[in-house]
């Protein structure tokens, strides 16, 4: 059986960031007990469906999970531990904003069983943090990082680059600072303007001047790879870098096509049950989700069987993001017949194949969408 992860979605933020297209909401007050009850109820349900499986990771994502009360996280963690057998080396990650208020809760999260923090630092430049709609300063982020570093063995943080008016030199300087911090995992995302976000609206109206063009964005990406390699933090996925052994086990579940349970508003899951692979998605509006969970006859989650073609597409789309690529064995199991599509892409230097896996070259990874458009049947 494949590995199993659990994703828990916390839908609330203190403020909505203008670039964010995740399922996040801002409310005045939150009934922590109601949420604890709902999560517990779902954990019970899903553990029954996945009975006998060993849980190898948990991820609290959001929203801003570091807004969850100490007690809420503790109750959820207790419930998880009694619901599934737990792998010895399990990874329990919680996404946090780097503010002092949230850092105060880090020790308690550690006590509850969280063993990895992923911090949304986003920028090491106060002007840009404001432009990104972030509520913290660089100084606060550095303080929060120090607190996290004391409390947890493993700390990651996110930076967003290719921002408005950001020069290659400015990013080189900023990334250099980040790599000097005592860090074992970095997620480095190029700013993406998503439709339906505040940035998306401004961009559609001709706003957001000074975003880098494709060439500068490519230069920034390539610089990022060089600097991270030199610092001993090579990319293991398109936007994720780690010291060897410090890769996010939970995220590898997504990219390798293993199973994951999704709990919470808008959470997605992929589960292999009885020889079929299911895609699950839950009601995304938080209040709706809560009320559906509280009624025993209503499920907040819909289940769809994925066809072989869907599974092949997902295997390629997710797997080719990793340096390690997609296992040929897995593609063979799904009955993928891709040789005619793969050959010209190998020829052109975008893909490589060995006896284990189909992989993107570094040239192919930076153009993965174009590679996928050639590769995926349709």
């Amino acid at each position, binding site marked *: 059986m494949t590995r199993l992860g659990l994703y828990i979605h916390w839908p609330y933020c203190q403020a909505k960031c203008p670039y964010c297209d995740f399922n996040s909401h801002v409310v005045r007050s939150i009934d922590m007990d109601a949420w604890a009850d709902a999560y517990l109820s779902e954990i019970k349900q899903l553990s029954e469906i996945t009975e006998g499986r060993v849980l190898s990771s948990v991820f609290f994502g959001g929203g801003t999970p570091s807004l969850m009360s100490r007690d809420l996280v503790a109750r959820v963690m207790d419930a998880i531990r009694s619901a599934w057998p737990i792998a010895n080396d399990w990874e329990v990650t919680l996404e946090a904003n780097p503010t002092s208020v949230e850092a105060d809760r880090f020790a308690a999260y550690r006590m509850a069983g969280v063993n990895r923090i992923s911090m949304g630092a986003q920028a090491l430049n106060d002007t840009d943090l404001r432009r990104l709609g972030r509520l913290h300063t660089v100084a606060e982020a550095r303080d929060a990082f120090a607190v996290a570093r004391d409390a947890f063995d493993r700390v990651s943080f996110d930076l967003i680059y290719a921002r408005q008016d950001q020069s290659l030199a400015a990013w080189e300087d900023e990334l250099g600072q980040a790599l000097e911090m005592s860090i074992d995992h970095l997620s480095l995302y190029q700013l993406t303007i998503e439709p339906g976000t505040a940035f998306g609206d401004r961009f559609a109206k001709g706003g957001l001047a000074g975003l880098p063009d494709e060439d500068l964005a490519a230069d920034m990406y390539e610089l990022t790879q060089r600097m991270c390699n030199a610092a001993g933090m090579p990319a293991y996925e398109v936007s994720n870098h780690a010291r060897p052994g410090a890769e996010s086990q939970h995220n590898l579940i997504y990219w390798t096509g293993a199973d994951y349970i999704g709990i919470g508003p808008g959470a997605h899951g992929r589960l292999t049950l009885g020889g079929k692979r299911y895609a699950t998605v839950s009601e995304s509006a938080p209040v709706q989700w809560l009320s559906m969970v509280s009624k025993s006859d209503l499920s907040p989650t819909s289940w769809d069987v994925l066809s072989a073609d869907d599974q092949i597409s997902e295997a390629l789309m997710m797997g080719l993001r990793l340096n390690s690529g997609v296992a040929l064995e897995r593609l063979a199991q799904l009955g993928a017949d891709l040789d005619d599509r793969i050959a010209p892409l190998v020829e052109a230097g975008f893909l490589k194949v060995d006896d284990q896996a189909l992989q993107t070259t570094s040239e192919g990874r930076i153009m993965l969408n174009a590679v996928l*458009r050639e590769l995926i049947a349709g």
Partner: protein
Amino acid sequence: MAQLTHIRNFSIVAHIDHGKSTLADRLIQMTGTVAARDMKAQLLDSMDIERERGITIKANSVRIEYPAKDGETYILNLIDTPGHVDFAYEVSRSMQAVEGSLLVVDASQGVEAQTLANVYQALDADHEIVPVLNKVDLPAADCDRVAEQIEDVIGIDATDAIQISAKTGVGIPDVLEAIVQRLPCPEGERDAPLKAMLVDSWYDPYLGVVVMIRVMDGVIKKGDEIRMMQTDAKYRIDKLAVLRPKMEDIAELGPGEIGILTASIKQVRDTKVGDTITHDKKRTAEALPGFAPSVPVVFCGLFPVDNAEFEDLRDAIEKLALNDASFSFEMETSAALGFGFRCGFLGLLHLEVIRDRIEREYQIELITTAPSVVYHVHMKDGTMAELHNPADMPDMTLIDHLEEPRIKATIMVPDEYLGDVLKLCQERRGIQIDLTYAGSRAMTVYDLPLNEVVFDFYDRLKSVTKGYASFDYQMEGYREDHLVKMQVLVNEEPVDALSIMVHRDRAEQRGRAMCEKLKELIPRHMFKIPIQAAIGGRVIARETLSAMRKDVTAKCYGGDATRKKKLLEKQKAGKKKMRQFGKVDIPQEAFISALKMDG
């Protein structure tokens, strides 16, 4: 049967928006020809496109009974003519079918180029012309100035110009009275053999082909056996009627009268505008002068965006051709665009109207290739071939020389924009023939290659003059020039749909502009793409579209899989909408946009 002395036939000459249709509506309304409850705006413009664009494409007529101040009742026949230069021949036939014209000029705007072209046609037909100043109710109306302009520019007496407002109805009774008093009555011999002009024809879904006629001599009756003198076809008249504007059966039509007939004619193509209709048994000795078969002057390819819609397109084109004999088509295959039709039109407006109707009435999305004129290719062996499509250009070594059609263009423009207009005409290889002023408006006449005008001349003219210029043209025959076929190669392969004919001296400039445009229009691919313009085997311009450098989704986690998969599918669908050429995907808009000359 009406007496000749009690018939008046007339047309209305006006620039677009100067109020021709509104005046026609008023004349119909004020004489009680149409009941008030049946009135709608632009009564005589029956097609949606006519109403929408405020233009007339097909001729139409209306018979009005008017009790004049002299106590007699007169029959007034108004022929509503197409106003656009594309239909100049049709206009000339309509003009021959009537004896007089109302020249309607917007008193706040003055004479425009289109007014001129049509008024000259009326003068050519020896019309009595009654000047009418419309929109006198507008604050900007300046009747004295405009009357003076009519005298200066057109050279007709405007002292008795009638001042009206077709909108409010002011002056309409004066117009009706002037038609009776100032326009001549028709002439004709009732006892002579039948001689009638085929003024226009159209397809009616219930009646089949409907023919509008003007009787010159003789009498025509239902059941008569008639002969069309140009096509030499014989028909029996099923129906004879007048339009008021609803069809009203009539027993016979005599000299001077205008009406319609049906005679089991299958296609509009079987009727020729300007043909002479006579009795099969008792024929007239001479056909009416001035007949000319209609000849398309502008050609372009129409291809369905979705190749699967080719049969639907064929169906649409055949249906439209039923009602429009002047529009020609034949199947065309393009390596880039697949199956489509090479279509010939009377001019650019005609092209646009047909294209709009296919897209609108038949809901087929079209790719229109660059319009091309008809070149005369003179071969070394002394033969001459017409070239409708640059793709069909014969081997250069076999060609002695090429000729291209020229036009005489009349442009009227406020003098502050004159410099820009002259510059534009020079850029398009124009030769100035005349430049005169009437007040603050300049009128310039240019000899221009039609080739330089068909594409975007009018758009450019509107943009450099902020819309204040008016433009009209007439064909002026063929002239030899140094013309070459320019090909465009994308990734080393020629793209047939982008081939154009161009003057040798302009080739480098056009080639460079096209390559630059294509570089912007074609999205980056996974490899670099050379874009070249070439004459024969010689490359005259080159651009390189660099390879795509980055296209990757930054974040893709468990919750993103479904969404990103949909996005990829959407991108793939978008790719399908482009035309694949070799390994290169070319977006549809490139086929037209690449040819636009921005300055």
